[in-house]
């Protein structure tokens, strides 16, 4: 599995580049690696090829939404917010923690 490492700041320009080449969004997911270390993995596809972008965050810094480029991303981003407690800035549709109404807050944190 090939993954291109990016940073929190370079993400948006990378995604913009992919959007211009008409890539589609496959998925976004978060993984807890260590205490206060999370990986956010973005997968894009062109026909059957996939491109993976990844960066690490500490869980307290908010990440930037890509939902103005890929509208469907709002579901994945709300999911990350609800399950991991990571804030996402500028989502086109913000459920404010109401997408998965879990019994305990941010259970994957």
């Amino acid at each position: 599995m090939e993954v291109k490492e990016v940073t929190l700041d370079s993400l948006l320009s990378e995604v913009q580049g992919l959007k211009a080449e008409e890539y589609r969004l496959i998925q976004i997911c978060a993984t807890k690696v260590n205490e206060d270390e999370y990986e956010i993995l973005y997968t894009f596809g062109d026909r059957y090829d996939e491109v993976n972008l990844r960066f690490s965050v500490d869980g307290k810094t908010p990440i930037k939404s890509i939902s103005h480029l890929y509208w469907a991303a709002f579901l994945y981003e709300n999911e990350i917010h609800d399950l991991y407690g990571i804030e996402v800035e500028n989502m086109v549709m913000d459920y404010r923690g109401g997408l998965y109404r879990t019994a305990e807050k941010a259970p994957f944190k």
Partner: protein
Amino acid sequence: MKISRSPWLLHYDASSCNGCDIEVLAATTPLYDVERFGIINTGNPKHADILVITGGVNAQSANVVKQIYSQMPDPKVVIAAGICACDGGIFKDCYNISGGTDTVIPVDIYVPGCAVRPEALIDGVIKAVALLDQKRKEAVEHASCQVDFSKRPAK
């Protein structure tokens, strides 16, 4: 066994994986056909006599289950279909599952299985029908000695 009425059935998916849901539906279709006992799968709680719950209960669905149960007319029977509805099953350890159906409402009949087999479900439904008859009888006896119509409040 004699069945005196045609009980109607309401199914709610509390947080099941779908396996039990489609088996509950399959039990009403031609091969298994619980409808031959006069049972109809209804969507309205006020029409229902038997409540079939599939899946373990979570914080979200607990209130819905309670609400549906309270809207059903008495007497009523609750069936917990599948191991998740009985006690949480494989998802017992999940953070969002608080346990089986009996943590929220009283359950009369437990039908285990992952997924519940239509044969087992039919067996459970037949038991529910018998129990419903019994409850109805008790309710009638109870009512006849309790209600005094002469003391009805004036309008």
